[in-house]
């Protein structure tokens, strides 16, 4: 086995690796292989921007769908001449449905409140239309019910119809079901597209960085030949990956900021059809997401091809 002198020399050497030297090597590597580094940064930046755009589109679609969630409401109208006992009885039955999970929430809307709501909805311009109804309100008392699951709503409607004192039921189950289906389909498609894009970008970045490592295969084999440890050979590439990842993430964040503020908000949002999520609300998600995905991806991609050339 090696002599004690040799061993102590090895131990001393192992302690002398400085982080500064690794960073110097990494920066040197990034700039020396400028074209390949630039290619890696551009590929990663593009992938991150596309991923970020998919994510925000999914979020905007979902949030707009939530605005349409008024459709998952049922209005149960009470008999015009229903007394307090009848109302209490209906209330008890609804409470029972709520405890069983069929109903998320419900509220009682008196006929006076309903009339007032209608007046407010039409505004002062049409106030005179309601003057005839001041003495005799034609509207009925009602319960506005929000149901939990759209697939069980038919049963709920049937059960509500069986309650004594309920005269009619208004619901838009067909629309609610369509919205639910669209939401689920959109989430499914965007999730898989994002995942697919992530895998594709992993391959593209790995190949780009592999090409950059290939250019330096002689350097790696010489390092290995003169006794550099696996850590010493690989670590500068890890830092290089970190630099490329960070740079790409920052560039992707700037690009996404532009897309969100000027394309999504100013152009798409200006039509008033879609409500766009404000940039301030999601900017930290963008930054954090880009940094995590960008840095982790490029660090992993930087490490993997090095081993091949270490086997001198």
């Amino acid at each position, binding site marked *: *086995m*090696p*002599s004690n002198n*040799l061993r102590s020399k*090895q131990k001393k*050497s*192992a*302690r*002398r*690796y*400085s982080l500064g*030297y690794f960073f110097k090597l990494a920066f040197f590597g990034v700039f*020396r292989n400028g074209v390949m580094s630039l290619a890696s940064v551009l590929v990663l930046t593009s992938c991150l921007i596309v991923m970020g755009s998919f994510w925000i589109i999914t979020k905007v679609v979902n949030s707009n769908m939530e605005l349409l969630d008024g459709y998952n409401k049922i209005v149960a109208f009470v008999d015009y001449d229903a007394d307090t006992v009848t109302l209490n009885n209906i209330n008890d039955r609804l409470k029972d449905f709520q405890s069983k999970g069929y109903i998320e929430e419900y509220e009682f809307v008196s006929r006076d409140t309903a009339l007032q709501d209608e007046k407010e909805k039409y505004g002062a311009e049409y106030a005179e239309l309601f003057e005839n109804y001041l003495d005799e309100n034609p509207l009925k008392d009602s319960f506005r019910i929000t149901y939990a699951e759209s697939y069980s709503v038919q049963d709920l409607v049937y059960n509500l119809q069986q309650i004594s004192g309920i005269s009619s039921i208004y619901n838009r189950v067909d629309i609610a079901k369509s919205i639910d289906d669209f939401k689920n389909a959109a989430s499914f498609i965007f999730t898989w597209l994002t995942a697919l894009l992530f895998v594709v970008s992993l391959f593209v970045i790995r190949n780009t960085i592999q090409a950059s490592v290939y250019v330096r295969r*002689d*350097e790696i*084999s*010489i*390092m*290995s*030949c*003169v*006794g*550099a*440890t*696996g850590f*010493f*050979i690989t670590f500068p590439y890890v830092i290089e990956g970190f630099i490329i990842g960070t740079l790409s993430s920052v560039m992707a964040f700037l690009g996404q900021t532009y897309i969100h503020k000027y394309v999504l908000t100013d152009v798409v949002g200006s039509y008033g059809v879609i409500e766009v999520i404000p940039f301030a609300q999601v900017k930290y998600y963008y930054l954090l997401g880009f940094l995590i995905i960008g840095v982790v991806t490029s660090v992993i991609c930087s490490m993997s091809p090095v081993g091949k050339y270490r*086997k*001198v």
Partner: protein
Amino acid sequence: MIEFNNVNKTYENGTRALHNVNLCIEQGEFVFIVGDSGAGKTTLTKLLICEERLSGGTLKVNGYNLSKIPRRKIPFLRRTIGMVFQDFRLLPNMTAAENVSFAMHVIGEPKKLIQSRVKRFMGLVGLSDKMDSFPRELSGGEKQRVALARALVNRPSVIIADEPTGNIDPAMSYEMMKLLLHINEVEKMTIVVITHQLDLVNTFNKRVITIRDGAVVSDKIGGTYDAIK
């Protein structure tokens, strides 16, 4: 010290590169290893630096048993061996001095030591005035001397020169051999030279090991061209 005991090497495709090689090279010796192409010289070199693993037998190099050495210890074995290649293997974007210092940087030596050692070994190979030259600005002989300085700078106990004169002219080849002899005498390093150039072997009258078809067929101190034949 290098010790081969019944060393065998068979590649995965079934090629038997070395069989029953028995050799002992003492510390401070100067040895030529000669043989035809495909005789097994390169395989022998690869086994010494653990680029290939043995198929059988035992091989000890500078206290490391290479039949049992774990992968994580291979870099430390390689620090005790300096390699000189026929194609120099210099990094084209580094100056001569940087190529030499690179070998010290990668094993984590301190800056001051690197500066003094690089200066000393560039002087030893006669290239003090070419420190800042890039490989493209050097002749073949000069490039090989830079490669030798790089092999020496970590003060290994063994230098293995694989066809060191293969890419340089005869006059330079002679100078290169003289330099290796000088290093052997002054630095007390073991020098193993693998070569085809039998005229050089005859001139220097050192120990000559001949390999043929993967076996050692001759091992003589003061070997000559005739002896090799």
